């Protein structure tokens, strides 16, 4: 511990203390980097003790054991007693779309309209957000920037967290459309005399009908394109032809069954379930239909008073045990919380989930679910060198301590607005 503190302090002092602006994006990787001796957590469930990892031009060129006799190229980083992880991925998140919750002027996450798939998050993504940069010292390096609200909130894009602008940041443009499935219960309008808490939603069937009707209209629209553009129908064509995924937000058992059954009937190819508080009650349906789940984050309270106190903690494990492809998202949490993504996975470990599998829920699995696994999510030869080095177990807050992070091989800054303030004031006190 002591040793670590010295390293970190030295590291901080080597950076400029004057700037309070956002971190400057790192330049393109110019020289090969080799990390030797670390425990490599590959993000696919596997682990390599005493590993050797090399990357060049942003691409991993070697991932294997350090005992292998092979030339170490470029800059060598000693990874002894350290751990290497793939950059964590935060799906379904409005990062960069809102800076300060209470300041309306900084809020770009929820556009007017119920069904607005044509509304695109990417162009509003603030690559210079102070919030986004605060993700990096915890290992969260990639996010799916997702609009909120309404029935169909809009179209997301996937970005990496070290960029000059949104074009720079984009990993996958317009990757998916986000559908908030209607709920069978709704919150009581207590100010109109209804009870607080939840009441049956009498409009549920009608609302489901509206969704299905929209899909059918989009299908009809797609069959005859020679007419005036309908932005919503037009924006939905990607989902219909399978080039975009449809993220369906549903938590209740009935809602999940309805959503999966009805969307399947409309031949929607790529469906991802988001939320899934009761996904464990429908796991065979989800498995049969090969529906992956971006399960709600573990740092949640039980929704029903009679539920197990630890249901949110163990839900990811239950779904993994049921044979589903699972990732963790914290869409419902405040943006700043997303840096706790590794600890959400860690919480599931406390419930008996294997650590390497837990890691997959925020790396390899998520990349697969988002469709960026060709390049991201795991540490493998040929993939992007988007990874970081931690002095300890990155899933535990006690030991998540980053010394290096790389996005596409670029050695990014681990400084933030927050670390700079820390150093500024420690200097003030120590300088006295």
């Amino acid at each position: 511990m002591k040793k670590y503190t010295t390293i970190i302090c030295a590291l901080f002092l080597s950076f400029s203390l004057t700037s309070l602006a956002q971190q400057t994006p790192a330049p393109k990787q110019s020289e090969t980097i080799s990390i030797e001796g670390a425990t490599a957590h590959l993000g696919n469930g596997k682990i390599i003790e005493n590993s050797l990892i090399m990357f060049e031009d942003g691409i991993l060129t070697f991932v294997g054991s350090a005992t292998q006799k092979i030339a170490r190229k470029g800059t060598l980083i000693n990874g002894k007693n350290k751990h290497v992880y793939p950059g964590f991925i935060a799906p379904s998140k409005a990062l960069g779309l809102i800076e300060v919750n209470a300041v309306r002027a900084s809020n770009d996450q929820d556009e007017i309209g119920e069904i607005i798939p044509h509304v695109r998050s990417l162009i509003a993504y603030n690559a210079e957000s102070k919030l986004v940069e605060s993700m990096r010292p915890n290992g969260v390096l990639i996010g799916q920037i997702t609009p909120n609200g309404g029935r169909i909130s809009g179209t997301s894009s996937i970005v990496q967290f070290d960029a000059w602008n949104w074009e720079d940041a984009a990993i996958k443009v317009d990757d998916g459309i986000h559908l908030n499935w209607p709920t069978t219960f709704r919150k009581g309008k207590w100010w109109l005399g209804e009870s607080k808490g939840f009441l049956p939603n009498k409009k549920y069937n009608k609302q489901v009908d509206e969704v299905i009707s929209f899909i059918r209209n989009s299908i009809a629209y797609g069959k005859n394109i020679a007419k005036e553009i309908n932005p919503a129908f037009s924006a939905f064509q990607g989902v219909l032809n399978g080039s975009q995924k449809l993220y369906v937000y549903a938590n209740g058992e009935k809602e999940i069954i309805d959503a999966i059954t009805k969307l399947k009937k409309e031949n929607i190819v790529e469906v991802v379930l988001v939320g899934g508080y009761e996904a464990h009650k429908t796991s065979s349906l989800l498995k049969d239909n090969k529906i992956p789940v971006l399960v709600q984050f573990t740092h949640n309270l039980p929704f029903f008073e009679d539920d197990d106190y630890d249901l949110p903690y163990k839900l990811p494990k239950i779904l993994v045990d049921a044979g589903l492809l699972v990732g963790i998202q914290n869409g419902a949490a405040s943006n700043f919380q997303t840096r706790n993504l590794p600890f959400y996975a860690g919480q599931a470990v406390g419930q008996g989930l294997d650590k390497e599998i837990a890691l997959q829920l925020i790396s390899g699995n998520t990349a697969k679910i988002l469709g960026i696994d060709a390049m991201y999510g795991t540490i493998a030869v040929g993939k992007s060198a988007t990874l970081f080095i931690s002095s300890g177990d990155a899933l535990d807050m006690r030991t998540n301590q980053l010394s290096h992070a790389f996005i596409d091989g670029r050695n990014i800054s681990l400084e933030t607005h927050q670390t700079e303030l820390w150093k500024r004031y420690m200097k003030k006190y120590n300088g006295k």
Partner: protein
Amino acid sequence: MKFLGLCLLWCSSTLFAQDYFPENEGVKATNKNFTAFTNAKIYITPEEVIQNGTLLIQNGKVIKSGTSISIPTNSVIIDLKGKSIYPSFIDIYSTFGVEQPKKSPSTRRAAQYNPSREGFYWNDHIMPENSANTKFKFDAKKAKELVDVGFGVVNSHIQDGIVRGTGILVALNSTDNDARRILDDQSAQYLSFSKSVQKKQAYPTSLMGSMALLRQMYSDAKWYSQGNATTKDQSLEALLKNKTKVQIFEAKDKDNALRADKIGDAYGIQYTILGGGNEYENIEDIKATNATYILPINFPDAYDVSNPYQAKYVTLRDMRNWNQAPSNPKILAENGVLFSLTTHTLKSPSLFKKKLAKAIKHGLSKTAALKALTTTPAEILGKSNIIGSLKTGRQANFLITSGDLFDTNTTLYENWVQGRKNVINDITLNDIRGTYDLDIGGLIYELKIKGNPSKPSAELKQDTTKFKVKITHTNNWLTLSFAEHKENKQYRMTGITHSNTNTISGKLVLPNGKESAFKAIKIVNYKDSKEENKGANTSNLTIVPITFPNVGYGFNSKPKKETTLFKNATVWTGENEGILENTDVLIKDGKISKIGKNLNFKGVKTIDATGKHLTAGIIDEHTHIAAVAINEAGHNSTAEVKMEDVVDSEDINIYYNLAGGVTSAQLLHGSANPIGGRSAILKLKWGETADKLIYNNSPKFIKFALGENVKQSNWQSFSRFPQTRMGVEQVFMNYFQRGKEYDALKKSGQPYRYDEEMEVIAEILNGERFISCHSYVQSEINMLMKVADKFDFTVNTFTHILEGYKVADKMKEHGVGASTFSDWWAYKYEVNDAIPYNAAIMQSQGITVAINSDDAEMSRRLNQEAGKTVKYGGMTELEAWKMVTINPAKLLHIDHRVGSIKEGKDADIVLWNDNPLSVYAKAEKTIIEGVTYFDLQTDLQYRKAIQKERNLLIGLMLQEKAGGAKTQEPKQTKKEHHHCDSL
């Protein structure tokens, strides 16, 4: 039914004359005749019952009742052989005839802080000057609804506001006028915790605000009565005038009943309390109030749980309430709690009989039920001399029934009010039920008449052919009609019936219009097939047991202190000893008794803690769980309110916190105002009642707040001072200066107006109460310390304190502690510079630092939040752990009792399966004062028990639905989770 309009029949005598009124529409005449009801079973009181008695009335009053009454010659005699007479019912929680205030439409954009009245109390919701009498207009239609179910007198009032003024005691006499039926035009004073729907003054916005307001009002009234006021206050004058009347408090809930009673006790007032129907859940404390109760019997309908996806929304808590609530009157009666019953909250009085029958089915004795409807309400109002019984001199308000009033098969014939007869069911109606041979033109049909004598139903068959038959029997005229299937040929019959019903005959109209005659000869006497109602028989009812608290995960019985030896644990002492490996800890009599190696005690429960970690219980300096209200936002200073008044001991979050190793917490007021309310420091003793959660000899704390919330920056509010940080300082300066002056005046021995708010401010100035101040940016933090310096006291704690790291040196110098979030930021403009290194920086400057939650989710894993300080700023694990144990204990001045593992301290300890700072750690046992409140193994058992009990209750509800009972749609009565900003 066509005779409905005639149901209200009255005596043939002339109206009761008002003696001294001139008469111009005829000649003046008086009726001094008596009416004697003879040979009846008479309930003179519920406990004084006479057989073959006589009730003698005259001029609307009971002259005599008993067995050997000499009947004056000028008496009209009514023979009631086989019938019973009961006193009519009394409902003392009624709105009968009194116009109720309507919600006034909101026209103002901003909240109204000042009163709208002149010459009255400063708070619009205090209206003791109101009188139901001024809003009263006799409502004959409503009166009939009440009379039909047996009520004779009601005490009606205006159900609006915190103090509601006086009620009006009215006999439901539709014949005479107000001169006779109003028995008291200033009867009882009514109070509640609810604001007026008509008045818009913001204060109070919360339950604890209502409580504080009532306390202040009572002390102001005393002060006023001593002639200290220089101005006239019509409200206080009315309050003083109403002082001698019975005070009826609308609590509507078991906890509110205790809250009301406590206020009453402080001012020498014993309220009569309107209950909520859940009093049975805490019968001991309810009994201890010594209050008389008024109980609604609007027992919940079963939830429609036929759809399992909907059923899951109904909590076990609510299912149990459906199952247990009908036992409420019985349990109160059995515990000697005096109560009356009311129709209050029933959609219609017509439901009263059914609900009452349910209470009786659930074990309420008939005598207790009758008392609750007659003598008790009369006693509550102090009117036993005129109503509630059939003793001499009482109002002639009584019921005539066919038998036992509470048997479902009994017919209520008449309800006499003030000597005026109201017919509910015709007493002279012949009982024609039975089986007859009906002769129609020589063809014999079998006619079976059954059901209610006044609304009979009939079956008709000829051979094996059945006919649909319509039957009515009113005023002893029978009509019958039926149609022959094939050609829809209509047969119609009508005839008068006689008391001897062996034969009924009359006119028959044939399908072709020709008239003929019919004759029916009784062949079988009627016999009620239904099992006789034998009164209380609860053996076939399934009633699930109450738990502590009465929700899922409640204890079957309150857990007890145990002597326990933990062997071979890794002990995080939180003291200079640091972390001790392979160490034993003995807890005994609720205290940490011994710490050492290889301890051995015989006959002691021993727990092998090898590989496990034993720590002190976590202490959350800033929580908003376990409260029914958080913010009193009606004023910019609310030092008068107390969180101790609004502790909710049934919040499931208490259990969640225990499962996360939390044993103590400071329940803080919210941050709606610069000077908030007083704190409640709690031990999370799940299953105990609210008062027992509060620390004994609790250190005194108050919440202060700075910044955006108190400026009301983040919502549409522009009228309340302060709107800037500049104004916030002035609020403090003003209040502390006034507090100082108040204290000086008080200490001088001169008369002064007791001001609860100023008392609290003076406590702060005198160092008797500590401030925990919600704070964000450095300017305001610095400001409050300077204000405190000016008034010569020390701020105890800055909570949140997100920019504390910028002024850590100044904080150290002032001597204030800090309680902060581990890593929260970016939710408001003022947390732009909040950094997760804050705790470490402040700690490095020698400040006592705690990590708190302010959040129901985070509070149950504060151990992890402490773990984050290792990551952010490189705290040692030992120091990190102190941030959620001994450090908050120090900030709360309870570190001599809790916060570390030290011999002699309270045995508030947690056994973890791993390093408690780790995300992987799980609390296995959480113990407070030697009592295990959370245990991982027990929790597993509760999960199974909950499933089992839900299943049982769902089955019972389905049965009830199948039996045709009314159901309600499933809903989830979810509680809101509070934060500082919660209103």
